[in-house]
């Protein structure tokens, strides 16, 4: 039986969590104050994921760069593959919040979307 202590990153509260793991499977989660904490704990010890945010160059727009994010969380181990995939990416203005900038980035099945309007 393994016990891991984590800080939940689901929201700014940052509840301290205790996860009991038996033979690679999560036996129990304590310390969370909401369901998201429970979900996070289970994921974090088996398949940790993150949201990745960055910015890409805009051409022909009123601003030089547009902020972007992964539409959903992606496997933590793929963070740098995603950054590599964003290297050199340029978008043409206008860009709107939600526009897909790169689809299925780094083969994660998740899109990179714009988080800002640049006209």
């Amino acid at each position, binding site marked *: 039986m393994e016990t891991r202590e984590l800080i939940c990153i689901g929201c*700014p509260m940052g509840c301290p969590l205790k996860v009991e793991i038996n033979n690679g499977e999560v036996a129990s989660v304590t310390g969370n104050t909401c369901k998201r904490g429970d979900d996070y704990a289970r994921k974090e010890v088996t398949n940790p994921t993150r*949201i990745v945010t960055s910015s890409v160059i805009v051409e022909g727009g*009123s*601003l030089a*760069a547009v902020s972007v994010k992964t539409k959903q969380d992606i496997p933590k181990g793929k963070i740098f593959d995603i950054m590599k995939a964003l290297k050199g990416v340029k978008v043409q203005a206008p860009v709107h919040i939600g526009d897909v900038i790169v689809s299925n980035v780094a083969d994660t099945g998740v899109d990179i979307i714009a988080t800002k309007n640049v006209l």
Partner: protein
Amino acid sequence: MLRQVYDIVIVGGGPAGLAAAVSAKRNGIESILVLERDKELGGILNQCIHNGFGLHTFKEELTGPEYAGRFIEQLEEEKIAYKLNTMVMDISDDKVVTAMNREDGMFEIQAKAVILAMGCRERSRGALNIPGYRPAGIYSAGTAQRLVNMEGYMPGREVVILGSGDIGLIMARRMTLEGAKVKVVAELLPYSGGLKRNIVQCLDDFGIPLKLSHTVVDIDGKERVEGITIAQVDENRRPIPGTEEHYTCDTLLLSCGLIPENEISSSLGVEMSPVTSGPLVNECLETNVEGVFACGNVLHVHDLVDFVSEEAGAAGKHAAEYVKNGAKHPSSDAKDIPITATQGARYTVPKTINPDRMDEKHIVRFRVGDVYKNCYVSVYLNDERVIHRKRPVMAPGEMEEVVLKKEELSAFPDLSQITVKIEEA
């Protein structure tokens, strides 16, 4: 000089200014003008491209620009007037706002009410009095954030960060993701000022060490940073000789405190709090200058933008009521009761509360001066304790709140003092 007239002028089009404007409109004022010095609305949120905003307000986790986008949308739906690239130079005590931009030149606006929403700036290396050379490569974390996130420029390749507040932690991750090497984050205090989640996703995720009770004691490199020396500090926060560690690097980022930008407020004669460096306000978020309100980071530095929006919404509502009432306050029999923060509580917003004028419930926000575990937030009306709430952990980096009830305050005989303090038992 050209002089315009508006009912409400809002200085700043960041999250506070936007929420105040929308609220004022929805509370019945048509004539509103937002003045913003940058080339777009959204304020500091435009460069906060990371996640974590909006959980309270929209029940979703948004990035900074997305959160700003929601309020910009509301402002545009409400057809509220705004000017960009416009700097407010001065506000007179009869509420004439002097501003400047390329198109209109210098112009004046006679306002009935003014809402201050100028946000804050960062403490510089100079203000911290860090000794050493003065090379290129030293940035406040926010300036670096602007360069990286909005211009697409890298300010450095090998980075040391001083200050583990959220901005420092966020920039540790940001620089790493964009290809720089962050060698260490040093923090003067024995605890980090940032959210615990940021320690995980900004430092632990990338194996960046955090050194608590450490500070920068020397900077070398005459033209560009070549190295940083950090040292451990004692309980008086003075460096301990012999504990020096040198890091080769080309960049030092500083995340050592935000200071509300109150130059305009001071020249207007607004009374300031020496603790927050922001204006002292009553429960309507009004300063000592009648008809001048304040909200957001210019009032006190916030951790969550959701609370900024809430506070700004209240300021907008009260400014609207003030204008609707003929640019004066409704008369009140009750007095403004001072709220004192003491014994662990550093300050409260608001500073005074009027039991007659207040809403049914009023959220009083405050910060503690140290880390407190298993202590109580206590509120006294005169000498009587009326709130005694246990909190497992309280830290200076996390804004706290207590709720005061109009019913309770009005019913209390000869109420002259409200006290907020931290008690052990």
